[in-house]
Structure formats: structure tokens, C-alpha cells
């Protein structure tokens, strides 16, 4: 007869002290391990110092600064135009968005008008960069989860977009395409046709990836309800962008504080419901589709005209004038050697970058170099919450979550 037996004796014994709850066990059962800073899944140089209880993370402490390259101090040592290549390397997977963010702040400070054609081209290149940023994020995240094929699908599509960006700006990754007052050069003649063709490829690539993962049992088990963060906590951490929208907060700067005619484009903002890793990955696929709609509308509305302002204090004169007459030469010389000197003042301006609100706080003292440039990096706020998010989950979940919050070390550490 198997009644009157003590069920406690059948349960596995966790430690030599018997069946105490985990909280009262001695620290000798914890293993201390470093996730990073040289780690395949750490997407750059981050460090998460974990105390593991078996496979579960008991406590996590994070450290950043391994890619602190002195962006802000370098900006103080160079002229406003020379800061533009430094901004490229902030969020290097979507470089033009940083260029536009910086130039927009300086243009507002100088009170110069950017021509309409330049605005539409900036919107098109911004959205293309948003698409490639989301493709890197999703591709790398899926590799960490184990779905390697999606990496090839995403990166092949990125190569096609890179071909277009290379023909446009001269460089694949670090474009430095914008100038203060407009753009450095106009689009090439076949730009609109090539962009439309690549949008179809992007849609096919995203469909392929979704076909592979959306009903995949392993993917769903690894991402649904993993590392959930509540709306209030996300707002308290200053999250913006797709990670905040995945928590259910409908907040997009393109809709709430529109700039560059975003109020005229018809697009939706995808919003998640739970705030888990699944939401954070899938929201990027839907955002890619919305960006495709925006690019199609912008291509249709793009007017003809100049691509840089004709304000002589700010924009370099066309080469025919620089080489043709002495006034053009002097103008060019003055802008390059003496720089663009805004009036003394301070400004904070922001754009909706791929990760959220990318802001620049610029202090000018009337000289040719900015006095102080502070970049407000969206992924700094994302990573600040990471330590708290992964406690109580397993190491594999931490890796999946790290990819979903899209940390780009260049922007995190500046």
C-alpha cells in the first residue's frame, strides 16, 4: 500500500541542507561568469557579469565603455562639417540617420532652410537605413537563437541596398551623405527605379524570414514571454523607438513631433502587446513594411530643385564658381578654413532613428567648432534596463534578449 508516505522524500534534494527554498541557499552554489566583452552574441563590446544558479541568472551587473571613442571630445576639436563623419560611426548600421540628426540640429541653430528635394531624399535614405538597421538586428538576433539561414537572407538584401547607397554616396557603410544645409550630391538618374526594385527584394526577403520563423515551435518557445518588461518600467528607463512600441506604448516621433513632411505620409505605427522578445523582433519586420510604404510615397512626391541651400555662409558654392571666379573661390575658402559659425546658443534637436529618439544637444560659442555636442543615444537607455530584465531567466534567454534590444556599441559608448 502506498499511502501514508512522506511525499517530501520523493522530491529531488537541491542541496545538502535539504529542501530549503532557493533564496536561503549559500552562495557557494552560484557560478560567476562573464558574458562579454569578447563574445559572439554580445554584438560588440558589452559586458554582462552574471551570477548563475544552475542555468538561471541570479544577479546581473553590466558594464559598458569598451568602445568609448571620444566622439564628444573629438567634435569639440573639429569644425561642424568635420563632425559629420564622426556621427556616421555612432550607429554604424544606419549611418545616414545620424548624419541627418546632427545636420538637422545645426540647421535649426543656423536657421537655414533645407530645400524640398533634399528633404525628400533625406527621408528616403533615412527609411532605407531604418530598413537595413532592422535587418541587421533581426538577422543577428535570429543567429543567436540558432536560426542561421535568416542571416543570409537578411544580408543578401542588405547587399542590394548597399549597392544603391554606394552609387549614391560613394561608401557602403559610413556614408557622410548630408551636409549642413542639404546633401553632398544629388541622386543618380536611375535611383528611383533601382530603389523601387530593391523595395520588392526587401519585401521578398522579409517574407522569406517570416515564413521560416513565425510558426516555428523552437522560435516561439524561445521568444514568447521571455524577458518581459512593463510599460511603466520601460518609460522610466527612457526607452523610445521599437523597443518601447513593443511594450504597447504608441509613441513615434514621426507622428507625435513630425518633421520633414512625415505628417503627409500615410503610414501606421506597429505596436506590440506584451513587451517580450517576440514582440521586439517582430515589430521590426512590420516597421520594415511601413518604411517601404513611406519610401514609395516619398519617391512619388520628390520635386526637382537644388539639393543644398544657397545660403553663402553655410553651403559650398558649386564647383564651376569655385574654379571660375574669385568670389566663389573666396567663399569656398572662407567656409572651409573659417567654418560655419552659428550664433552663440544651445539647442536640443531630435529625430526618430532606427532605435528610438536620437537627439543632439549642441552648444555653440560663435566659433567654428561646436563648444559641446552631446549625443542622446537610444540604446544607452535600452541597455541600462538589460541587467534588470535578465535576472531570473536563463542564459540562453539573456542572449536572445540582448539581440532584441538592438545594442550598437558605437552609439552606446560614443
Amino acid at each position, binding site marked *: 500500500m502506498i499511502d501514508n508516505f512522506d511525499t517530501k522524500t520523493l522530491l529531488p534534494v537541491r542541496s545538502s541542507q535539504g529542501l530549503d527554498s532557493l533564496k536561503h541557499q549559500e552562495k557557494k552554489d552560484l557560478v560567476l561568469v562573464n558574458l562579454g566583452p569578447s563574445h559572439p552574441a554580445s554584438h560588440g563590446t558589452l559586458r554582462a557579469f552574471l551570477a548563475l544558479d544552475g542555468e538561471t541568472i541570479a544577479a546581473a551587473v553590466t558594464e559598458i565603455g569598451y568602445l568609448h571613442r571620444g566622439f564628444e571630445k573629438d567634435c569639440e576639436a573639429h569644425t561642424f562639417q568635420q563632425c559629420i563623419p564622426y556621427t556616421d560611426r555612432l550607429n554604424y548600421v544606419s549611418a545616414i540617420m545620424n548624419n541627418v540628426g546632427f545636420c538637422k540640429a545645426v540647421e535649426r541653430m543656423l536657421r537655414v532652410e533645407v530645400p524640398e528635394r533634399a528633404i525628400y531624399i533625406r527621408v528616403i535614405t533615412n527609411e532605407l537605413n531604418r530598413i537595413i538597421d532592422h535587418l541587421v538586428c533581426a538577422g543577428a538576433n535570429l543567429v543567436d537563437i540558432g536560426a542561421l539561414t535568416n542571416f543570409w537572407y537578411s544580408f543578401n538584401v542588405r547587399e542590394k541596398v548597399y549597392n544603391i547607397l554606394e552609387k549614391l554616396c560613394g561608401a557602403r557603410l559610413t556614408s557622410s551623405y548630408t551636409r549642413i544645409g542639404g546633401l553632398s550630391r544629388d541622386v543618380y538618374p536611375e535611383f528611383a527605379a533601382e530603389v523601387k526594385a530593391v523595395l520588392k527584394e526587401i519585401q521578398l526577403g522579409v517574407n522569406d524570414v517570416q515564413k521560416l520563423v513565425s510558426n516555428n515551435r523552437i522560435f516561439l518557445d524561445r521568444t514568447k514571454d521571455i524577458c518581459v518588461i512593463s510599460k511603466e518600467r520601460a*518609460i522610466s528607463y527612457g526607452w523610445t523607438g521599437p523597443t518601447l512600441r513593443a511594450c504597447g506604448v504608441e509613441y513615434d516621433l514621426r507622428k507625435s513631433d513630425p518633421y520633414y513632411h512625415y505628417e503627409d505620409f500615410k503610414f501606421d505605427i506597429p505596436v506590440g502587446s506584451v513587451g517580450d522578445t517576440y514582440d521586439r523582433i517582430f515589430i521590426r519586420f512590420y516597421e520594415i513594411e511601413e518604411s517601404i510604404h513611406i519610401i514609395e510615397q516619398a519617391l512619388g512626391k520628390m520635386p526637382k530643385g537644388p539639393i543644398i541651400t544657397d545660403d553663402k555662409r553655410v553651403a559650398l558654392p558649386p564647383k564651376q564658381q569655385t574654379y571660375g571666379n574669385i568670389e566663389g573661390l573666396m567663399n569656398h575658402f572662407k567656409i572651409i578654413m573659417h567654418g560655419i559659425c552659428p550664433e552663440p546658443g544651445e539647442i536640443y534637436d531630435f529625430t526618430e532613428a532606427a532605435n528610438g529618439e536620437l537627439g543632439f544637444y549642441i552648444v555653440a560659442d560663435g566659433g567654428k567648432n561646436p563648444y559641446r555636442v552631446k549625443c542622446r543615444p537610444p540604446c544607452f537607455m535600452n541597455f541600462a534596463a538589460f541587467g534588470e530584465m535578465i535576472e531570473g531567466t536563463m542564459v540562453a534567454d539573456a542572449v536572445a534578449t540582448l539581440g532584441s534590444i538592438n545594442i550598437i556599441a558605437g552609439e552606446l559608448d560614443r
Partner: protein
Amino acid sequence: MESAILFEKLKEKFPQAIKGSTDRFGQLEIQLEAKAVPNVIAFLRNDSELGFNMLIDIVSIDYSAYPDWKEDRFGVVYLLKSLTLGHRAQLKVMVSESNPEIPTISHLYANANWLEREAFDQIGIRFEGHPNLKRILNHHEFVGHPLRKDYPITRRQVLSANESLMDEMTVRLKEKGWE
């Protein structure tokens, strides 16, 4: 709410703390005293008409090389945003070189912890009551505050060994009940 109306409301509630305002390209920057920072920001966060629930950034500035600057050396700008009501606020605090201290707001916003650590690391502003005021971007053997104007840009400092982070880990384990 327009930033001018916000300024009037704050001036009414905290008459000694609010020192003035300046227009920064459409956004009014409100100057306040260092000691009043947690109270003012708590009011901005908790008041239902204002509802500034997000801290966007903390910017620290060293004004020592600014032409014709007569005031205190360091400025700290708090940028706030209300997601529900849509408005923004910009508050500036000036602190002197001899006593660069501001009370912390890390109990109000979760990201203030790291943002204040960055202001401490780069410029050297101390935040009273901060749970963990350590360097965040530069390495732990770094001496000085690089974004100050008297720090030469090419003064490099070698790191011999990375820090073990056990100090932070023991605190965190204690918080999670593992002691």
C-alpha cells in the same frame, strides 16, 4: 502646455528655486538651483497636468572656455518629456567648480542612474545620494575628467587590468536575497 506657461507654474510653486529662463530656439530653458532639483523634478513627474514621465537626457557642460563667461563653471541640463501630454521641459542647473554637487534623481527615473554616472565620469559633477557613482565610459584607472576643457584631448591613459565588478555584484546579490 507651452514652456512659458510651465515656467509660470513652476515659479508659483517654487519661488526661491527657479532663477530665470532663456529661450532656446522655441523651447524655454528654466534655470534652477541645485538643491531644489529632486523636488522640482518630482513635482514635474507627479503632477497630473504636467506628467513628465520620461527623462530624455542629462547633459553636462563645462563653460570654462566659453567667451565672456562670468557665472559658475559647470552646467547640467535635464531634458524631460511627457509621453501622455506631449510637451517637453528643459531645466538647467549651474554648479561651481569648488562644489560641483547636485542631489540625485535616480529614485525618480531608472535611467538617471547611468546618465548621472556619465556626467560624473566625463565632467566630474558629483550627485549626492547616488547608489553607485562610478565611472561608466572610461576605465576604472582613468584619472581626471576628459570632457573638461583643461583636459588635453591626446592625454592617453593605459589600463593595466579590467575591474572585476565584484563590488557591484555583491551589492546586487544582497538586493536579490542571496546573502
